[in-house]
């Protein structure tokens, strides 16, 4: 991690992981909305 100039692959990996996390959180909270229905309430 303290390597000097860096690998494009390190940057790519960071971006892909973070982007996937963001999308998962987005879907997770929509799912919270979907399953939050109280039928017949």
């Amino acid at each position, binding site marked *: 991690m303290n390597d*000097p100039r860096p690998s494009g692959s390190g940057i790519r990996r960071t*971006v892909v992981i*973070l982007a996937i*996390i963001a*999308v998962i*959180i987005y879907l997770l*909270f929509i799912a919270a909305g979907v399953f939050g229905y109280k039928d*017949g*309430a």
Partner: protein
Amino acid sequence: MSSNTAAAHDHTHDHTHDDHHGAPKGLLRWVFTTNHKDIGTLYLVFSLLMFLIGGGMALIIRAELFQPGLQLVNPEFFNQMTTMHALVMIFGAVMPAFVGLANWMIPMMIGAPDMALPRMNNWSFWILPFAFTMLIGTLFMPSGGPAGGWTLYPPLSLQTGNSFAFVIFAIHMLGISSIMGAINVIATILNMRAPGMTLLRMPLFVWSWLITAFLLIAVMPVLAGAVTMLLTDRFFDTTFFSAAGGGDPVMFQHIFWFFGHPEVYIMILPAFGIISEIIPTFARKPLFGYTAMVYATASIAFLSFIVWAHHMFTVGMPLGAELFFMYATMVIAVPTGVKVFNWVSTMWRGAMTFETPMLFALAFVILFTIGGFSGLMLAIVPADFQYHDTYFVVAHFHYVLVTGAVFAIIAAAYYWLPKWTGNMYNERLGKIHFWWSVISVNVLFFPQHYLGLAGMPRRIPDYAVQFADYNMISSIGGFAFGLAQLLFAFIVWQCARGGVKATAQVWEGAKGLEWTLPSPAPYHTFDEPPKIDDSVVAHGDVAH
């Protein structure tokens, strides 16, 4: 320091061959730029513009509240102003200002040539003007702008006309911009540090931004999820937040504040980083308790995820939940206290001088702490039942965000302007700006504590006559504070145009990689990794 400065000069002069051109000319430079300094400047200029527009909205609010009765605007427009003022200030002024500072300073502080993803950086910025044109444009649409408060609580927010679709789209674009910016910051810090710049040698500003960027990635998608569901409730007949259809309006509040509370820390952690840079410089001492500061910042970020419901104690929740959220909120005072004590300890027996950045930093420490204490009062459940939705809350978060976040941004601008422009700003005008601001901001916001304790609700265009005196005082403070910020814009403009030339180090006590570069910082810096040794590192476990 002088040998390092000389080395940095040599380093810069070595790179005059073809591929190290200066800044391109013309308007298109700003449209197509991928240079972190250009993009930082764009963010900062945009944020200043939004600060003035959002400030104009605040003055409409304060003018209407100058005396009881309805004078200037109708209640619907007043509510649009309170809503839009918040959205513009949070997403248009404070957040972009911090991103601008991150763009300018992070690569120079860690010895990187640029941000890791320069083209995405350009895109992150250029989304903003379009998003805000759309957001502010709703004020001119037949159904008017959003008027239900920046929190967009349903069912009230769902009564907005068709302009609501534009509001939601604008918020989505702002979120995408923030997430891209955050990914860029993390990728830069984790992958682009110069050899020897270990994590625990990084400047506190870089640390605070690394943690902030993780917060952004964690919570901006939550806001996006919440407003997506609002959009479908409003236009596609879903009932996520409608009890009539089996949904739950309180669920929106939970989801919103799961985003909203970390968002508050997104707006204050970079401010902590700035203050941790400025105080050691003007106290001429290394930061006291560097590692504790890093852990305190991380602790505050973690705790921000488990306190959201303190914004909604009055909706009715189980006593156990109220107690949990009350105590969890109070725990945040511990790492925050660590920070305040460390700043004070840094100053203790230091050889202090009081240039404008230091004055704003000192005002930050004192006034932000006042905002913190009123936050503790609000955390107490039975007390909150009295304070909720009153002007006490308005006073509290303006102490945190104006004398906190905004003062830190102003301090940062004075601190780094000489590095950006190569010129010293007018110190005399800077001091006038400081005293004018610090007096007027207290005249503006302190009386609002009393108004709230006496029961004046927030977000109302008219009020009972017993609130008249303090409202008049508050409005006078508001106009004085607004005027002071025009002086700030003038000082920045004057400094950008010329002035006494700044040295590379600028401030006698300044330490860190950015101060080894000439002023103004060349268009391209650290094309080759700098050599990092203790003498150029400001922070961490280094000899001083």
